[in-house]
């Protein structure tokens, strides 16, 4: 089986349709154009729900196209790629060496596919499980076409497509490995290809992840930093994530509030959002509705009126009058 696979790969590498030169992503463009036309047609008919589903696929195709064009642009600015194609013995040696490097290696001659399984990947304490890396020599016009998928998925709480910070919907975002991967596949250096992809899976890049690893199980609570799980509360004022223990609640409208956004009625000291506190008509300090009287006066202003009625005996016009008439 090893020899048949190596022979098939070698023949594909040397076929006229394969070239070590990267080519324009024509097939990706065509696929994107077909999806675009389908989406436009659905919108014109007013079939918005169907259009929304197609729109998601169109988004994936556009992302793929942008990615391939970006890679092509980087590659044309590098020195010309070496056009050495691996020999049949070299390919055979690669396939044998994969068994020593990976937990499981399988070759599917019918689908012309090689698949390897990594060890369980753990990034910063988050167990993502083992990953399968699948590459097919059937699609040699797209030598960089391969798939990475989680065998025991532990997807991010906020994004079910993300099985790894750098894997979404079966596609690895290669980052700085992009050129090396393409060169390895173009030259038929399969051992190198699988090794490089595995090292990308073992590496966490905090500056560019589909979901940051510290938010894998939900965003951290802004107050205490613990994981909020898959249904975090959010402050109704500033939108930060909150755990159930740290979230305050407006006594009037019941919306969640963080510690910085909750206001207290000066009288009853209950928590309210800014919108549910009403300014006293006299002192203009914000109070809850229950603590204001029907004239919208706070308890303090009711006790000490702002303009008390002056004493009649002290009135200037009554100075010469008998203050105590008989």
């Amino acid at each position, binding site marked *: 089986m090893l020899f048949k696979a190596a022979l098939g790969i070698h023949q594909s590498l040397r076929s006229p349709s394969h070239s070590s030169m990267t080519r324009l992503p024509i097939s990706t463009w065509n696929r994107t154009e077909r999806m675009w036309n389908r989406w436009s047609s659905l919108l014109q008919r007013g079939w918005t729900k169907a259009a929304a589903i197609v729109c998601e696929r169109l988004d994936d195709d556009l*992302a793929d196209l942008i990615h391939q064009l970006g890679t092509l642009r980087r590659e044309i600015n590098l020195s010309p790629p070496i056009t050495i194609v691996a020999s049949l013995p070299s390919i055979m*040696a*690669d396939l044998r060496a994969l068994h020593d490097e990976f937990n499981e290696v399988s070759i599917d001659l019918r689908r012309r596919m090689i698949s390897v399984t990594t060890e369980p990947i753990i990034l910063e304490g988050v167990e993502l499980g083992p990953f399968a890396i699948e590459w097919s020599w059937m699609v040699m016009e797209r030598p960089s076409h391969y798939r990475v998928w989680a065998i025991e998925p532990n997807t991010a709480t906020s994004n079910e497509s993300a099985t790894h910070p750098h894997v979404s919907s079966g596609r690895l*975002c290669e980052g700085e490995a992009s050129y*090396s991967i393409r060169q390895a596949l173009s*030259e038929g250096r399969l051992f190198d290809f699988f090794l490089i992809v595995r090292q*990308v899976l073992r*590496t966490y890049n905090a500056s*560019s992840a*589909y979901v940051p690893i510290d938010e894998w199980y939900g965003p951290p609570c802004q107050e205490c930093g613990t994981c909020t799980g898959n249904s975090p509360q959010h402050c109704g004022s500033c939108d930060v994530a909150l755990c159930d223990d740290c979230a305050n609640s407006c006594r009037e409208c019941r919306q969640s509030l963080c510690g910085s956004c909750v206001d207290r009625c000066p009288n009853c000291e209950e928590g309210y959002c800014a919108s549910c506190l009403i300014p006293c008509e006299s002192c203009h300090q914000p109070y809850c509705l229950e603590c204001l009287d029907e004239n919208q006066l706070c308890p303090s202003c009711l006790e000490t009126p702002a303009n008390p009625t002056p004493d009649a005996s002290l009135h200037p016009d009554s100075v010469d009058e008998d203050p105590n008439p008989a």
Partner: protein
Amino acid sequence: MRIYFINHLGGGFADHLEVAGGMTVGQLFDEKVGGDPASYLIRVNRLPTSRDQVLHEQDRVTVTPIRIEGAAG
């Protein structure tokens, strides 16, 4: 002697090199890559190796960074 050297760091490098007879893996690494060898997977003919392993004619040496950062999108 002639060896095949593949470096997966950055933009990558893959080519035949003429090196002095008796050169070791460690000497080749220091000359062509540099830095801390513990940060790399170094393979000779696809097998793990040690710094003091002497290279032979037509050996295939690959150097792959342990940390290769992916991205998102």
